[in-house]
């Protein structure tokens, strides 16, 4: 339950993109308080992987263009964890 009703539209993550679950952008270390448009793609702490999210030129006919990985993809990538209430085996 999100009391503020805020839903962050940005992709976050170090290894793979996923939805940001913060309740406010204020003080967010990923988007720096809303300053960074795509925190996943624009990370600068990936050592030698400067163009980590850029697949341009990689078998583009098969894998599509570089910008076809959207925020929605990030959201669907996150698997909901099974909660206690969801687990029918628990008493």
């Amino acid at each position, binding site marked *: 339950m999100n009391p503020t009703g805020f839903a962050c539209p940005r992709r976050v993550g170090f290894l*793979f993109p996923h939805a940001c679950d913060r309740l406010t952008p204020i003080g967010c270390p990923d988007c720096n308080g809303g300053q960074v448009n795509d925190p996943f793609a624009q990370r600068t702490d990936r050592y030698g992987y400067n163009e980590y999210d850029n697949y341009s030129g*990689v078998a583009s006919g098969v*894998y599509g263009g570089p910008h076809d990985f959207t925020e929605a993809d990030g959201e669907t990538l996150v698997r909901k964890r099974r909660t206690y209430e969801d687990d029918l085996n628990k008493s």
Partner: protein
Amino acid sequence: MAIDTAKLQKEGVYDARAPLRSLLEDLDQIGNMVQAAEAKRHRVRLYSGVAMIVGLLSAVVAGIVNSNAFGFCAFLAFTAGVGLFIYSFVTGRDLHKHHDRYDLLKELSKTLQHDADPQAKFSVHLALKAQPKLLRAEPFPQRKNGKQEFFEEDFLSIGGELLDGTFLEESVTELTRKRSYTNPRGKSKTKTRSRYQLAVRLGYPSDVYGDARPAQQALNEEIRVPATATIKDVGVSEKTIAVKAMVQAEKEIPQTSAMVCLGAYRILNLARRAAGGAK
């Protein structure tokens, strides 16, 4: 989570299954324990120095006043000083020797935090006390009385599920070569060299990523690692990506681990595009 301090001090082993945040709190506690052990060693050494000085002064006084009582005190104090000095090297020796290992686990945990559910439980094993296993011993014919032994020690592992359903496992093994020989001046010498084998295994969900093998072929990209590390093996199957790297220094393991995971996820993120496009 409360850590088993007695087990940690006696066996030098920390095993837990908990969310990363909780593990990091435990590691802070272990860090405090290591610092306390270090402070104790310094304190014991200080007491040892004081006891030896008291012993020497007592000996001087005993000589001046010709007193057996002072002579006995000198003997007692000096013996106690020597005993404490030896004890200072024994107490907390294992925690002192491998105090970097908890820092290493901390760094690995911090990297995983970006892509793990805060409630997801990770299993960790950390050995602060060295328990190397002898692999083989053989002559070292290049040197007089030369002998070399090879050891391995699995001292760290961490595993758990990430937000995308991938099960990540990392383990670090210390590989040690110990050479002993007699040098031309007749002195016995022992030289030890360690390397670290980092193994990363990602069990990815096929409903999200499909089969990663075509993506690996299309990407045709080496997994990057720091200059002092080398990739020994990369295996991509329809369910897993497994990478082995050899690292020269322990302090380079966190960066190597992060780069290996990034390299593997370069493949997976591309595979996911194909899997998404095929749906």
